[in-house]
């Protein structure tokens, strides 16, 4: 392997970009491929499939064997609202291997004392998400109930094709939210991607139980991505 290939592969992973290292097992040599790059006809479908599934594998085409080593960014969980549920979710997300961060402009909520072990930004989502955009490997859970805080990131999450978009709130709250989001130009189909009421239907009552339901729903959305059941 060329050192430049290794460097390019590592740089893409560090920058949260999907990347594929294509190694020619028959003739030797390799290439670093990004989503959308042009590849030989015999490999195009396999490369596309690898980027979708995240599964690395060997492919034979034209009498040659190739290894497709694909790397998708680790799942990130962005939570809007430094609320009680977020406190429980922070510990659980860490155990489950999700890189979680919390955004809440209300300084009284977003304190290091309440959230000792998670990245916490006492900023408006408008400012944070401009600096660190959402992407398809990110889940967004809006937990404040406050339209001033939740609406913008929900809309951004839909536009960024986040693999999960969830919003806390009663059916009535959500019905009002749908109308507001429609007024911003989102289609019914786009708005329909929002999971509300948030969380798997496990009868969760306490903040910690709701956190379990939310995390379970996030995991399901990630693992069933593209299978039509997510």
């Amino acid at each position, binding site marked *: *392997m*060329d*050192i430049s290939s*290794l*460097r390019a*592969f*590592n740089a893409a*992973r*560090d*920058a*949260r970009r999907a990347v594929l290292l294509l*190694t020619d*097992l028959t003739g*030797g040599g390799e290439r670093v491929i990004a989503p959308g790059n042009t590849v030989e006809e015999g490999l195009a479908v396999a490369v596309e499939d690898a980027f979708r599934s995240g*599964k*690395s*594998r*060997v492919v034979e085409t034209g009498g040659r064997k190739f*290894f497709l*080593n*694909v*790397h998708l*960014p680790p799942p990130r969980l962005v939570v809007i609202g430094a609320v009680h549920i977020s406190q429980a979710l922070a510990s659980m997300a860490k155990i489950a291997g999700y*890189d979680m*961060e919390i955004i809440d402009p209300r300084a009284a909520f977003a304190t290091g004392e309440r959230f000792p072990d998670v*990245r916490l*930004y006492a*900023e408006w989502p408008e400012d944070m998400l401009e*600096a*660190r955009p959402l992407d398809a490997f990110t889940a967004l859970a809006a937990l404040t109930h406050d339209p001033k805080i939740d609406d913008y990131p929900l809309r951004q999450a839909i536009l960024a094709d986040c693999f999960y978009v969830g919003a806390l709130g009663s059916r009535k709250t959500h019905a009002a939210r749908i109308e507001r989001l429609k007024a911003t130009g989102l289609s019914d189909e786009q708005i329909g991607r929002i999971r509300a009421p948030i969380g798997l239907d496990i009868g969760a009552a306490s903040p910690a139980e709701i956190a379990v339901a939310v995390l379970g729903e996030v995991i399901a959305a990630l693992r069933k991505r593209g299978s039509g059941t997510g």
Partner: protein
Amino acid sequence: MEDAMQNIFSSDDISDPADVAERWIEGGRTVAIATVIETWGSAPRPVGSHLVIDGEGNFHGSVSGGCVEGAVIAEAMDVIADGKPRLLEFGVADETAWRVGLSCGGRISVYVERVG
């Protein structure tokens, strides 16, 4: 805030074998990377798992639960010496060809190549 953002995605990369390989090379070491490219049955490490080996036999990462690393490291020494990639297969069925096997009953294929 700027500093916080710099650190966002560097959490556990320190132990990632591909990153370790890059660091070792920058430190002047000769390095081979072994990668699990196929698995059959129950295999301890998934496809894409890496073991990185240097010319002194130091290694980092894993391609199995410790069952075949010794053999892979030995092969990696040859790969580092002659620069030719090797395709190794391990499994119960290959016990006569290889003195090591996977106790779990699975089978794995490992590609070993020199970097640089």
